[in-house]
């Protein structure tokens, strides 16, 4: 059954280039995934095994993929839609594989696979800018992932070269040489950190997010980054099992804070809204890594969930704006809340959500992080300063695009109701954060 789940997305190719059929299949597949996956919890097959954390990310990915696929229907012209759906199917398959993999080697393979598939997503139809972005993404991503592979090899060697099965490695890692593990973790952190988009490894991220077509950007930010983060999560849990968490924590906190602060500065100087959202992804992945470094995996999970939903909403909104206005710069779009509320209200609110305001879930996540970080006050203060700076970076775009000078947008019919669905989800999550669920996931991940 798990193999079925991995290969299910590839059934989309049966539709060939029939757009209608492609859309139907692309929505049906994640829907099936959503239905099927919960029943497969705990089953195993070959190198695959579905545990709670994997299931969580799998469901999240399927949910977002389904929504994005639906949105893409109205976004792409008929003749180029197949490119998106084909690449998307590949991507979804590799994401499924990564979340189902219970073997560190297989996990690596699928993470790399998702890089390649998402490179196709970025490339989409071509053009000089998209090519440039894809090339940079491919190079940086491949080098990073190669570093990660060295880390995987070291871990494999450290546990005696007998197994890469996650459960077994975790029980074996306690006796492994701690110095070697540290080196391995450093390599893994830099390797997967490149894909997560941590500073200063983020260079590919804004290019890829900005040049990919809108729905693809939403997929990249909402799901792709999670794939790499998931790998990082697994390895951090390994370090914890080996009793090396304090060491890992230092690195994670440093990368998290750096990403936060530099993300804030990048945000402040940015004039194109899609790049802006990309930098915001970098900032938020930094925050998730920071939460992980604080020793709160459940919060990191929650943060990625909240970020994925908010960012999907933001990118779908942004792609709608781009499609209707053909302007990339913040300054050339304005007054969306006033003139185009169906699009402007959810988009502006998504920026507020990314700025960490209630009643959105990122507020809860940041609050919890500060609460714990304040135990070592300087950490807490730095975190607060970073959050403030990041908000300052988002403020101008939010004000200008939501309420500034601008023309009403109109024309093509997009499925804007999807944005409201996402907004509703965010509100629900923000008002009633299911902390207990995440605490339970933490147990799966953290305590054998």
């Amino acid at each position, binding site marked *: 059954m798990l193999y079925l789940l991995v290969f299910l997305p590839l059934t989309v190719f049966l539709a060939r280039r029939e757009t209608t059929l492609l859309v139907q299949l692309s929505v049906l597949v994640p829907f099936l995934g959503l239905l099927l996956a919960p029943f497969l919890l705990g089953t195993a097959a070959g190198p695959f095994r579905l545990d709670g954390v994997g299931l969580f990310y799998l469901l999240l990915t399927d949910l977002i993929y389904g929504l994005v696929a639906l949105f893409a229907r109205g976004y792409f012209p008929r003749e180029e839609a197949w490119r998106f759906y084909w690449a998307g199917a590949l991507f979804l398959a590799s994401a499924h594989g990564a979340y189902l993999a219970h073997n560190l080697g297989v996990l690596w393979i699928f993470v790399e696979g998702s890089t390649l598939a998402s490179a196709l997503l970025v490339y989409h139809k071509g053009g000089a800018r998209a*090519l440039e972005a894809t090339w940079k993404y491919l190079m940086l991503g491949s080098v990073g992932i190669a570093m990660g*592979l060295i880390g995987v090899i070291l871990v494999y060697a450290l546990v005696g070269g007998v197994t890469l099965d996650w459960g077994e490695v975790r029980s074996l890692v306690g006796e492994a040489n701690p110095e070697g593990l540290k080196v391995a973790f450093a390599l893994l952190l830099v390797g997967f950190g490149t894909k997560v988009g941590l500073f200063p490894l983020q260079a590919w991220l804004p290019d890829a997010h900005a040049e990919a077509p809108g729905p693809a950007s939403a997929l990249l930010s909402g799901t792709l980054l999670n794939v790499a983060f998931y790998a990082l999560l697994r390895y951090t849990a390994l370090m914890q099992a080996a009793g090396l968490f304090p060491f890992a924590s230092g690195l994670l906190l440093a990368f998290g804070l750096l990403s936060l602060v530099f993300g804030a500065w990048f945000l402040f100087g940015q004039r194109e809204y899609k790049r802006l959202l990309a930098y915001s992804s970098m900032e938020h992945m930094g925050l998730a890594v920071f939460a992980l470094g604080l020793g709160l995996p459940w919060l990191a999970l929650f943060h990625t969930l909240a970020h994925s939903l908010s960012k999907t909403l933001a990118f779908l909104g942004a792609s709608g704006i781009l499609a209707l206005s053909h302007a990339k710069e913040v300054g050339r779009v304005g007054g969306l809340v006033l003139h185009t509320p169906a699009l402007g209200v959810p988009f502006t609110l998504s920026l507020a959500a990314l700025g960490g305001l209630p009643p959105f879930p990122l507020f809860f996540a940041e609050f919890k992080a500060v609460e714990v970080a304040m135990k070592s006050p300087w950490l807490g203060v730095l975190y607060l300063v970073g959050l403030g700076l990041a908000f300052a970076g988002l403020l101008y775009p939010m004000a200008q695009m939501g309420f500034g000078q601008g023309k009403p947008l109109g024309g093509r019919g997009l499925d804007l109701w999807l944005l409201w669905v996402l907004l509703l989800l965010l509100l629900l999550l923000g008002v009633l954060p299911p902390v207990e669920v995440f605490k339970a996931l933490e147990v799966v991940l953290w305590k054998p």
Partner: protein
Amino acid sequence: MALLNTLVLAILATGFLMVSRRSLDAIIRLYALQNILLALVSFALAGGEVHFIVAGLALFAVKGVLIPWYLFWLIDRLEVSHEVEGYLSVSLSLLLAGLLTALAFRVGKAFVLPEAPLPQGVPVALALVLLGILSMVSRKKAISQVLGFLALENGVFLMALSESHGLPLFVELGVALDAFAAVFLAGILIFRIKGEMGHVDTARMRSLRG
């Protein structure tokens, strides 16, 4: 043991040559040679176990034959000069390569795990990785960056060999498949870059900034 040492040193030598040569054809040939040497190392380490030999053969087939052939085909079709363009002169490249290798040997000790089957291979592997990144950082042609990446990949492979007899077979194959897919995709992209911009100079691809 002496044979293994020689092989490892030869691999390092190919790495150096790949950094210093200015002709793409030569570098591709060197890359093929490096893969032959790696395959030999893996056979030498296999100790008669069949699946290691299978893996070595498969890898040789993909990386020693298929990829070089694909790259030759690529540069023929591209109709660009076969010369490597870079930021660094040959002597400077070699100097930096020497420094990085020294660093790799200095740091590599820390990487060597107890029970590693080929301890002397670890610093060399690390050096290959660093040299690979060096050529990616310093060379402008898209295709030479791909070659740098491939050299890096070989370093990783050597690392796997030296530390632990390589990874489990299916993982190894999956990794090779990914590497091949990456190179294949890169090749397609290079074609498109040439078609779209009329050059394959990555230093001139700087329209995305800020």
